[in-house]
Structure formats: structure tokens, C-alpha cells
């Protein structure tokens, strides 16, 4: 919990499809922003992991996108919108191990079909709005709790 209370904040970052050189930079900015505010380390880690998984999804599968970080009324929201091909079967995409990644994407260490399931695991709530040809809108929410909701075992 930041020493001077939780500030209100809204910041948007552009994510470019297939920009593998910069993939992850947006999430590092999100991580830095939250760290500088003074949020609990474990909470920052959970938000950063959600942001990174979502950012990699846009880079790997989506179109150009925008990640918006909002801090308000005790929550941290990540909204990630892209204008890519969309997700045909959301239920399937939320299953561990289901992936449409190419061999090249897997060589980068991604595309194991763990992205959305891992966001679900780290976030307090995840909503996915998408459809074939309709782009994708992820709504990720994390509650600001005293110990950051430490989920480590």
C-alpha cells in the first residue's frame, strides 16, 4: 500500500503487432509506474505478469493495440484492446495448453497456451470480449490489498 494513499491514475500505451524487438516494454513501463507509486512488490509483480501476458498476446496474435492502466477506488485495471483477428472460441482460449502459436513464436519461448489462464490466475477478475474478426478486449482487474494478495506457496 503506498504511504500516501492510493492515487488516481490513467495511462495508455501503444502495442504494435509483431514488434518482437520491443515486446514487453509496455509491461516494464507499467511495472515501473506502479513500483514508483509504492505499491506492494507482490501486487506489482502480479499486475506486471498480467500486463506482459496480455502484451505478448497482442504482439503474437493480435493487431495493433492499446493497454490502458487505470488506478481508481482501490483497484488496478488493465484494459487491453487490439484490432486483430479476434478469438474465435474464448472458452478454448482460456484452457491451459490451447494455442494457435506458430513454431517461430514458440521458439521465442511463448505460445504454450498459458497466457490467458495465467492472467486469470494472477488477477482478481478477467473478462474477455472477442469474436472472429472483431478484435479483442481484455479487462483485467486486481484489488489493492495490504499484502498485495501474495499468492506464492
Amino acid at each position, binding site marked *: 500500500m503506498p504511504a500516501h494513499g492510493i492515487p488516481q491514475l490513467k495511462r495508455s500505451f501503444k502495442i504494435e503487432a509483431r514488434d518482437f*524487438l520491443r*515486446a*514487453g*516494454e509496455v*509491461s*516494464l513501463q507499467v*511495472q515501473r509506474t506502479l513500483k514508483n507509486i509504492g505499491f506492494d*512488490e*507482490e501486487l506489482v*509483480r502480479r499486475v*506486471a*505478469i498480467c*500486463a*506482459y*501476458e496480455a502484451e505478448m498476446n497482442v504482439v503474437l496474435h493480435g493487431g495493433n493495440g492499446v493497454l490502458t492502466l487505470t488506478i481508481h477506488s482501490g483497484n488496478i485495471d488493465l484494459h487491453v484492446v487490439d484490432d486483430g483477428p479476434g478469438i474465435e472460441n474464448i472458452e478454448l482460449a482460456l484452457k491451459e495448453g490451447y494455442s494457435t502459436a506458430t513454431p517461430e513464436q514458440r521458439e*521465442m*519461448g*511463448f*505460445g*504454450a*497456451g*498459458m*497466457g490467458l489462464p*495465467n492472467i486469470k*490466475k494472477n488477477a482478481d477478475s478477467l473478462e474477455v470480449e472477442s469474436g472472429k474478426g472483431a478484435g479483442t478486449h481484455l479487462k483485467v482487474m486486481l484489488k489493492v490489498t495490504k499484502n498485495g494478495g501474495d*499468492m*506464492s*506457496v
Partner: protein
Amino acid sequence: MKLADIKETLHAEVIVGHEDLDESVTAGTGSDLMSDILRGPTRGVLLLTGLNNIQVIRTAVISGVKAVVLVRGKTPSSEMINHANDHKLPLLSTPFTMYSSCGRLFSKGLRGVEQKVPR
């Protein structure tokens, strides 16, 4: 285990973090799959990997990994080195394979992250 001991055990070259050799890691984890690393737990741990690209550095920083060892003597790109420097992430390279590296560290007392993955 201190990074200095890890360096010695793995006959490793320190590429970034010469001034951090007194720092310690709590446990070790090894994977070439960044998706698995992001599943955690990772906070304060040593990551051994055979993947040699910029995403290794970003994944480590995002997930709270304390230091990274590249196995099989891999040489990181200058971009990876710059990135690791920027984020103060110690980066080492060992001539040993993944299996031997993990075995050497484990036998010296560096345990795994010991999380049972739910089925």
C-alpha cells in the same frame, strides 16, 4: 546461495552484475519456456535457461527473477546485455548443459522452487 558460489559451481562467466556477487537467491528454476517461468513462483530465484533472446531478460524482470544463467555457454546479444544492465539483472553464462547445471547447484544445496503444480 550467493551469486559468487553459483559462479564458482557452474564455472560461469559473469556478464552483468560483477558488483552483485554477494547477493543471494532463494531457490532455482530452469526452463526454456518463458510461459512456464511466468507461471511462477519466481520471486528472488535463479533462472537457468537455454533460451537466448531479449525476452529472457524481460521475462526475468517482469517476474521478479533475481539472476539469470544461460546454459551451454551461450553468449547473449549486446541488446540483452544492455537491457540486463538497465534493469540491474545479473546475467551469467555457464559451459554446462541445463541438466548438469541444475544438478551441480542442487547438490550444493540450492533447492527448486518446490511448488506442486495443481492438476
